[in-house]
Structures are given as C-alpha cells and as structure tokens.
C-alpha cells in the first residue's frame, strides 16, 4: 500500500513536472514573441481596455486599410474597365506596414464590402462629379453631409487629398502633427506630409459610416462586428491562460513536494537506461531533436504535439546524463572489445607463462593487422571517413598491449627485488601481486619459499640457542663436582706423609682435573661464539702489536720449546677493529697449537702482511704428525692426532676460528704435506678511525 502510494506519488509528480514545465516553456515562448512585437502587442493590450470599439487600434487599422483598398480598387476601375473586373478578382495586396489582406471582389461587389449584411458599415464611393456611384445604402441619398442615420455615429470622408473624421458630431484629429509613424496606432490614411495622397486619387470621393454598436450579420461576415468580438476572445484566452499558469504553479509545487519520489523514479528509470548502448541513446537524442525542431509536422498544433512529445525525451536524456555518468563507455565497440578481452583471459589462463606472453604478442600483431586492413578497405569506400576510427582502434590496441607489458615489467621488478632480498636473508613482507598479474603464482611460490626459509632459520636459531643452554647447564653441573675434586686434590697435595708413588698419583689427578676445568671453559666459549651469543667489545687496535704482545705473553713457553720462532711483523701500526681479548685467545691458541704439534727443531714462521685493504697474520709450522688433508681440523673435538693422546682439549682451532669469525675476520687452515698454515685475515680499518691513543699525562 505504501509502496503503491509512493509509486503513484512519483508518477503524479513526474506528470506534474512535465506539464508545468511545458506550460512554463510555452509561456516563455509566448513572452518572447510578445517582446519581439512589443509595439503591436501593446496596442492590442490597450484595445482590450477600450469600451468603445471605435477607439481601438484595430478599428483604426481596419478602416484605414479599408479606405486604402477602396482607393486602390477605384484606381483600377477607372484606369481600364474591362480588365479591371478580372484583375480585381481575388485581389491580394499588402499595405504599407507589410500586412497582407484578402478581398474577394467581383463585379457586383468590387470592394468586397457587401458581405456585411448587418450593414455595420455604410459606404458611398464615387468621383467628385458623382459622389455616390457605389453605395450599400439605398435609404440615404447623401451621407457626406447632414445628420447620420439612427444608430450610426461615425463618419469618415476622403476628399481626394485628405481624410476627415467625425464622431458623435465632433471632428477627430486625424493627422496629429502631420507625420505618420507606423508604430503609433495612427490612422494609416493618405494625407500626411510624409505619406501624401496618390495624385491619381484626387478625383475620388469616399464616405464611410460606422454603426455605434455593431450587429452580428445573419449570413456573411462583418469586419467591424469582429473587432470587439475578437477583443473579447483575446481577453477570454488571456484569462484562461493565466488560470493555466496558476494551475501549473500548483503542479510545480506538487512536483517539488514529491521530488524525492520523483527522483527515486528517475533513478530507477536511469538504472534501466544505464544498460543501453550509447549508440541507441545517441540515436534517441537525435530523434528528440528532430521532434522539437518540428521537422516532422508542418502545422502549429503538430509542432505543439511534437514539442510535448519531445519533453519526456529530454527528460530521459537529462536523467541518463545525471545518473549514468560515463555511459558513453558502454558502446557497441567497447562492449565487443571487453567481451573479447574476457574470452582471451579465460583462454590465456590455461597456458603456461611463456606461452601466454607469446600468445599475447601474436594477438597484438593480429589485432593491428586486421584493424589496419579492414580499416583501409572501409576508409577507401567511405572516402576516409572511417580512417580516424581505424587509427583510434590501432592506437587503443597498442596502448592496451603497452599497459599489459608495463604491468608485467613492474611486477617482474618487484619479484626480482623480492628474490634478492630473500636471498640476502632480509625479513620482508610477503609480495602480494594483483589478482590478474601474470606473475602472481610465481610471487606466491616465492612467498612460500621465503616462509620456509624463515621457518628453517628460526628453527636453527632456536636449536642453536637450546644447544648453548644445554652446554651452559651441563658445564655448570660438571663444575660443582669438579670444584670438590680440585679442592680435595689440593688438600691431598698438602699432605706430606704420603708415599712418593701416591704423590705421583695425586700429581696426575691434579693435572687432569685442571685440564678438565680448561676444557669445560673452552666448550662453553666455543659454543657461545658459534651461536653468536658472545658479547664483544669491538675497538680499533694494532694487529701487529697484538701478535707481539701474545708472543711476549707466551715467551716462557716459546723459550722452553725446541722450536725457533721467526717473526716478521711491520713496526708501523696495522689497524683493524676487533675485540682484543678474544683475538688474544685466537693467537694464544694458534701459538700453543704450534708449540704442541710442531716437529722438534723446526721453525715456526709468524708473519703479518697487508694487501688490498686486508691484514693477514699467517702462522706456519711443520707438523709432527701426518695430517689428513680431508679432515677439517677446525671442527670441534677434531684433532690432528687420531689417538688423542696429547694434552689439548681439541677445541683450540675451533675456538680460534669461531672467535675470529665473531670479530668479523676470516680464519683459514691450509695443509701442504706437513706444512701447516693458519691464516687470520681482517679488513683494515680506514685511517680516519684513529687508534685509541694513550692520553698524555
């Protein structure tokens, strides 16, 4: 019920809108025509106010024009008798204002005045000698002079040169200041200074007498009777029209009040027209334009009907323009192209990437070729009319291909960037390409790989951390009993009454427990360094000095050994950035290694060289044991001697390697037969970062 009411409201509002707009437009046209003939229209309006029809402009015009006609006919009759009759028939002529008049004359009624059977106008026409040659009044001998008959009060006399008028026995001022102005409503009769009487008319005499109140003729027509009648009709029309305007105002109010419903309806209609092709709309608009301009119908009512019919057309165009923005895009060609694109897409999706790209290129070439050839032929037939369309289509295809290609290039760029960052181990957000991207699957796969790598790295870090925790806990647990062992061995050592062989045993216990202690610390250190949990105090230092200090620190052991140390370290500072304490451990381990495993009596070479921005410390010695070049002896617990009889913890090189790497250096071992070379390489710190200088006291 409510929706029905709403619907009817909308329809009423719509119709009201049309009607009121139509009326307003008609009024506007009427107003424009009024303004264009302003003087004439004003004369007519002033006539409406006149009670006495004889005072109207229309009466003046009618009588003036009648007189001019009579004079014209008289002139014709007098010039040639026989020809005149035929010539007078259906005479049509224009007056000086350009108005056209029709008089149906014949021999009996050469002036066309006898149709007035009511005799609202009496006339006597003749020459100076015979003033009453033609007359429609048999009762009165002479109307030129004397009293007028009963009921008549107006007399116009033409005396061959001028006109004199008498109304109710009073003379009327015909000529005013003697100059005729066409727009002033003056008597349009000969005798003005600027419109003198034709000299041919000098002999003619005319007398016209008008009835005070015109009477309706029984059969026939009276121009005089029509004058007040027409005035009344015009008045009636104006009244009706103002009623209509008032009505249209009410309609407009209605249309305004229910504008919401109307707009709703408009929107619904627009929703229907939205799906129409633009071409249909264009054709419709042209048709509506034709209707309005009145090409269809020649008559005035036909034009009005056409105009009214065209109004809804304009309405439809207006709402389509308003609610369906960009509806021009929905045209036949674009729809065809879109359908084709959709078809191609579903077709392409089944192909692998490289086939898809090749297929796309082929398609582009085909499109261009077909468009060009078809367009060429059509253009020749249409004398170049379709050439712009052809060119536009070709440009469109090129643009579309370029767009696809550009999109692909962008996606490819993003994909390679992502691959690089994944390869570098950067933690980036997953790459999301648009749904229709050709590389979407590849990006998806890459995201999976990245996820997998990240998970693996996380797991490894986690397990490494767990390993460190395990080693920490284990070493704690070992340390406690070891503390007791060391303490009691120490107490035993202080016993002096023990036999010598027991003292030997105690010495072994002492050595081994201390070795165990060192091993535990080494295990702890190496696992921390390897897992990257070691705290470092990185600072610029002199690598040469560090090696010299380490050698000095171990000087006793070096002197005690059977080895000769050949040290080649430049005097000038070799600055690198590292944790000095850790690096000391590296060289300490390397030197102890050399001391422990070198063949007696051989030389150990320690050298420091600088090259290409790197400083390299090399330590070379001749191994006492045969080394297996296939074994990585920097691995934890791997030792040069398979029997593990010597005193090392098996962690020396491992610690050296992991500490070096933790400080940002490189550690390498080279085995050439018995020649064992350990190299520690660090990037040189630029000279701008100066060595920590001891401040002067």
């Amino acid at each position: 019920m409510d929706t029905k009411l709403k619907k009817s409201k909308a329809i009423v509002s719509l119709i009201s809108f049309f009607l009121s707009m139509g009326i307003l437009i008609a009024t506007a046209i009427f107003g424009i025509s009024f303004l264009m003939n302003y003087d004439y229209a004003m004369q007519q309006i002033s006539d409406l106010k006149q009670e006495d029809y004889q005072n109207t402009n229309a009466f003046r015009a009618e009588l003036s024009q009648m007189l001019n006609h009579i004079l014209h006919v008289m002139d014709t009759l007098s010039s040639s008798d026989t020809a005149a009759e035929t010539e007078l028939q259906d005479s049509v002529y224009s007056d000086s204002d350009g108005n056209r008049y029709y008089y149906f004359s014949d021999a009996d009624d050469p002036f066309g005045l006898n149709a007035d059977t009511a005799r609202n106008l009496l006339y006597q026409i003749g020459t100076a000698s015979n003033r009453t040659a033609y007359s429609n009044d048999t009762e009165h001998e002479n109307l030129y002079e004397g009293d007028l008959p009963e009921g008549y009060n107006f007399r116009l006399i033409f005396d061959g040169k001028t006109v004199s008028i008498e109304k109710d026995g009073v003379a009327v001022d015909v000529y005013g200041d003697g100059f005729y102005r066409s727009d002033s409503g003056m008597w349009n009769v000969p005798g003005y200074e600027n419109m003198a009487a034709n000299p041919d008319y000098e002999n003619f005499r005319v007398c016209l007498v008008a009835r005070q109140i015109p009477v309706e003729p029984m059969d026939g027509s009276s121009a005089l009777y029509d004058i007040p009648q027409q005035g009344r009709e015009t008045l009636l029309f104006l009244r009706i029209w103002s009623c209509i305007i008032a009505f249209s105002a009410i309609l407009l109010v209605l249309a305004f009040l229910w504008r919401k419903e109307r707009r709703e309806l408009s929107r619904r209609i627009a929703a229907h027209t939205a799906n129409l092709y633009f071409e249909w709309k264009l054709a419709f608009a042209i048709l509506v334009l034709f209707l309005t301009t009145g090409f269809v119908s020649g008559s005035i009512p036909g034009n009005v009907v056409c105009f009214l019919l065209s109004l809804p057309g304009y309405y439809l165009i207006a709402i389509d323009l308003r609610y369906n923005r960009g509806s021009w895009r929905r045209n036949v060609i674009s729809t065809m192209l879109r359908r084709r694109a959709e078809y191609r897409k579903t077709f392409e999706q089944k192909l692998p990437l490289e086939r898809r790209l090749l297929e796309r290129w082929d398609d582009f070439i085909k499109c261009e070729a077909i468009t060009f050839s078809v367009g060429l032929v059509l253009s020749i037939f249409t004398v170049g009319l379709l050439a712009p369309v052809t060119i536009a289509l070709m440009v469109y295809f090129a643009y579309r291909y370029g767009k696809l290609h550009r999109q692909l290039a962008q996606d490819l760029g993003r994909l390679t960037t992502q691959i690089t960052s994944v390869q570098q181990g950067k933690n980036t957000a997953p790459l999301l390409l648009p749904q229709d991207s050709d590389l979407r699957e590849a990006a998806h796969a890459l995201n999976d790989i990245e996820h997998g790598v990240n998970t693996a790295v996380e797991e490894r870090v986690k397990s490494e951390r767990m390993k460190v925790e395990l080693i920490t806990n284990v070493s704690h647990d070992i340390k406690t009993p070891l503390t007791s062992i060391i303490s009691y061995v120490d107490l035993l050592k202080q016993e002096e009454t023990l036999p010598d062989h027991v003292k030997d045993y105690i010495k072994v216990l002492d050595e081994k427990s201390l070795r165990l202690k060192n091993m535990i610390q080494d295990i702890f250190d190496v696992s921390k360094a390897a897992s990257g949990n070691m705290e470092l105090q990185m600072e610029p230092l002199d690598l040469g000095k560090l090696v010299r200090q380490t050698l000095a620190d171990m000087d006793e052991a070096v002197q005690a050994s059977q080895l000769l140390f050949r040290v080649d370290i430049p005097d000038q500072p070799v600055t690198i950035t590292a944790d000095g304490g850790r690096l000391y451990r590296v060289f300490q381990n390397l030197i102890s290694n050399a001391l422990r495993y070198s063949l007696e009596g051989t030389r150990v070479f320690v050298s420091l060289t600088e090259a290409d921005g790197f400083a390299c410390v090399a330590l070379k010695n001749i191994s006492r044991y045969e080394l297996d070049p296939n074994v990585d002896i920097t691995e934890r617990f791997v030792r040069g001697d398979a029997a593990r009889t010597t005193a090392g913890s098996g962690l020396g090189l491992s610690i050296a390697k992991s500490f070096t790497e933790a400080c940002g250096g490189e550690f390498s071992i080279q085995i050439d037969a018995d020649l064992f070379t350990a190299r520690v390489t660090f990037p040189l710190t630029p000279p701008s970062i100066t060595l920590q200088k001891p401040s002067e006291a």
Partner: protein
Amino acid sequence: MNEGSILVVDDDREIVRSIAIHLEKEGYSVLCAYNGLEALDMVMSQPVCLIIIDVMMPKMDGLSAIMKIREKRNLPIIVLSAKSEDTDKILGLSIGADDYVTKPFNPMELVARVRSQLRRYTSLGDIHAQQGNHVIVNGRLSYNTEEHILTADGEPVKLTATETKIIDLFMRNLGRIFPAEEIYRRVWNEPAFSAENTVMVHIRRIREKIELNPKEPEYLKVVWGIGYKIEKK
C-alpha cells in the same frame, strides 16, 4: 687472629668442608651453612667477619641472602658461582658482594682472597688515615709517591727498581693505557728495543707480586693490541 668467624655457605657439603679445611689450616675459625636461610640465621646469631656464599642454593639463593645480610650488617662477602659470565659477575658485585670467585676455583686463590678482604676490612681505617696528597689508593693497592712504596691489602710489596718505576708510571696515571714503547722509553730512558718482550716480563713479575691470581689479573692488565694499564677501581 680475628674476632669472629668466616661463614661458608654452599648446598654442596663437600665443598663447604674442603673450604673449611683450607681456611682452618690458615688459622681462621669457620661456620658452615647449607642454604640462604641458615646463613641469615648464622649472621644474626654468631659473630661473623666474612661470608663466602654460593649463588644457586635451595630455600633462599645466594643473591637474595646477600641483599638481606647487607640490610643488617656491613661485612665482606665473597660470592662463589659456577656462572663465569661477565654479566653474572657484574650482577653479583652490584648487589653488594665484594668479590666474585667462579667455580671451579683454586683453593689457595680463595684463601688469598679471603685474606685480602679481611685485611682491607680491618685496616680500612689505616688506609684512610694514610690518605694524603702523596698516597694514591686504588682498590687493594695504595702507592706512596713520596716514598715509592706500593702496598697491597696494607702489606708492602717488594719491588725491584725497574718494577717500582713501572708501578710509579701506572699508579700516577690510573686507567691510562701505555704502549710498550712508551713504558720502555720512560722507565729505561732508552729507545725502545724489543720493548714488548721486556715489558711483558716485568709486567708478569709485578702481577705475581700484587695479583691474587696472576693468570687472571684484576689490576695490571694487557689491553690487547694497544698497550698496558692498571685498572682504575
């Protein structure tokens, strides 16, 4: 020798016993406790002059016990711990411990540290009294610049002339790092020749005289790759 006993706290009874034996051999009287709560009771009820306490113990751990004890008493505390990380040491010392010994430790070193702590504790007044313009005090060490005498824990250290020159240089410039060449130049008044080895030999000897554990020096340190210094305490 001292009024009061040394309180040894550890949940491992064997360790407590061995420490007790070592300390008693040196003539100290020893009290034993096996967790934090017992230690607290002992401190409250007995005359205690020094505490050796383990960190990881049941009922109340060592660090909590130290904090509780520090609220009541001001006496030297040596922490024993299996944790050897620097961060653990810093935590222990910041809570109020005076020294930190990691397990497994050398019993003789522990005894030396106990002695050092007790000396400083009892002779604190003397050190303050000595303090004048010509005495430089740095932790366990104090150096008289007039008399060129170095004392560790109040005990004079016997140094050779060269060693005294080196100590003089370091003590007057606490915390400053000296390259071996500079030390050589300033001590020997000669251009440096094989400075590193010569200086290192002397450094090692001085360490044996002033450090409780010469292998892990606390005062006379090598700054690897740069030089040598005495740590400012």
